[in-house]
């Protein structure tokens, strides 16, 4: 089960005859229906959040974002997400490598299991982690109500992203080049660094960015394990939730807008970086 975020533009239309021909009613109707649906469900509500966050001016926006509790939550979220993204970058690439280049009994099962975090409800993910890493942990590790518990929850829900972006690229990789390099006396490390890695970098970056974006917006999996302690384990989404509950809608909108801006910026930057690497290659 893969969630493919199409960071790349749609393929350019190939100019077959008849495509531009039918400017008839059905297509126009279809287009306006699709746009209306998207606007009513997604665009208008998101615009309302941004508008609401700005409705009392920039000063109020910064005031809301900078309020001690919200600011602590934002810092925790961004910091944890950077760590989670880096761990995923390494572990995700490693798992993808093992899935493509290694053979062992149970590999197919491992390949299937990787997608579980996408399929599992986030609240269930939190409960599941709490059963092993909670107060009555069988391992004797209690991460409940601690920042490491938040990290664990974020690592759980972001596991598939890098694996699933790197794996297909690794599968397509032509092994002739590696064989050639090996025959010319390159060490395994040199082969990995000079030949394999450059081909994987765009996919690794893309997957890591997705993991980061998911991580800063995560809510459900952190709720049970973090205990939502203000200034300690409260993540940004929980802070927004609490502000909504206490009717501070403008404050909630300000933090939301910041989160939205950060995720979109990261996805955009990575998209540009991928293109740049692609052009250079």
């Amino acid at each position, binding site marked *: 089960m893969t969630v493919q975020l199409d960071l790349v533009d749609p393929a350019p239309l190939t100019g077959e005859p008849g495509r531009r021909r039918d400017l008839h009613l059905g297509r126009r109707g279809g287009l306006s229906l699709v746009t209306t649906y998207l606007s009513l469900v997604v665009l208008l509500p998101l615009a309302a959040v941004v508008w609401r966050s700005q409705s009392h001016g920039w000063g109020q926006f910064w005031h809301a974002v900078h309020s001690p509790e919200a600011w602590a939550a934002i810092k925790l979220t961004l910091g944890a997400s950077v760590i989670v993204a880096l761990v995923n970058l390494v572990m995700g690439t490693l798992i993808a490598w093992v899935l493509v280049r290694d053979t062992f009994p149970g590999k197919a099962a491992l390949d299937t299991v990787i997608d579980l975090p996408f399929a*599992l409800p986030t609240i269930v993910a939190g409960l599941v982690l709490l059963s092993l890493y909670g107060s009555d942990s069988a391992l004797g590790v209690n991460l409940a109500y601690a920042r490491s518990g938040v990290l664990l929850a974020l690592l759980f829900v972001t596991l598939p992203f890098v694996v699933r972006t790197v794996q297909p690229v690794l599968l397509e990789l032509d092994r002739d080049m590696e064989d050639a390099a090996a025959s010319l006396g390159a060490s395994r490390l040199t082969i990995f660094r000079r030949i394999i890695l450059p081909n994987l970098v765009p996919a690794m970056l893309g997957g890591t960015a997705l993991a980061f974006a998911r991580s800063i917006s995560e809510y459900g999996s952190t709720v049970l394990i973090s205990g939502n302690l203000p200034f300690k384990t409260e993540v940004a989404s929980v802070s927004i939730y609490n502000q909504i509950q206490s009717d501070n809608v403008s404050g909630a909108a300000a933090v939301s807008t910041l989160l939205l801006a950060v995720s979109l910026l990261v996805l955009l930057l990575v998209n540009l970086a991928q293109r740049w690497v692609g052009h250079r290659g």
Partner: protein
Amino acid sequence: MAKHSLRWVALVYVLLLLLLPLGLVTWRTFEHGLSPVFDALTTQEAGHAFQVTAIVALLSVLCNTVFGVGASILLVRHDFPGRRLLNAAIDLPIAVSPVVVGLALILVYGRFEPIGGWLHRQGFDVIYALPGMVLATVFVSLPLVVRAVAPVLEEIGTDQEQAARTLGASSWQTFRRITFPAIRAAVGYGVVLSLARSIGEFGAVAVVSGHIVGSTQTATLFVEERFENFDQPAAYAASFTLAMTAVIALLLTRYLRLRGDRT
């Protein structure tokens, strides 16, 4: 040797993060046998929560499937100004926190002017009621069908569709007889993905539902509420049921992807 150590690192990571916790939840659920699980799941509250989840998930998937197929055809088969913008906008929900989704819907359809206030005066409440929960679920699962169907539509090309049109088929006939059979597996894949996502949605629904037990409480909200009230058996039983649904969905998507690859 190096190869093997990588393998073990990967296996241990997945084991500790994913498999052991899941195994433990299963074990905890059935620790005292089957009957407590059965009892916990057959209370009126639990039954109602799963029923609400089913209604919300089915309605959202229905909406998103119709939208997804339509939007895919538009994006792949037609050219129009703003096509790339539409394509990008469809992916937006992936980058949005579920709580922000909830807030966004409250700001438009809650009792704020102009839209929500007007709807309320007409006696139609969206927030803290079923329509809001469907909207929230539609929002979070919106890209899934499009992203499953569009690439397949791209791949099959237009030769057969054009042939059908040349032979005098109407656009509806062409869709029903040519296009749809070719994208059926992809639509199925997208539907299963959306169903799993819809059944599992928590944050967005938590914000717009108002947590009214026995009314707007879904299965995932039930898990949280039971856990917070120290009724762990019920929380575990409901979690296990949801996890099983997720596993079935996962296996189904595997099967559908294999089938899609073959055709």
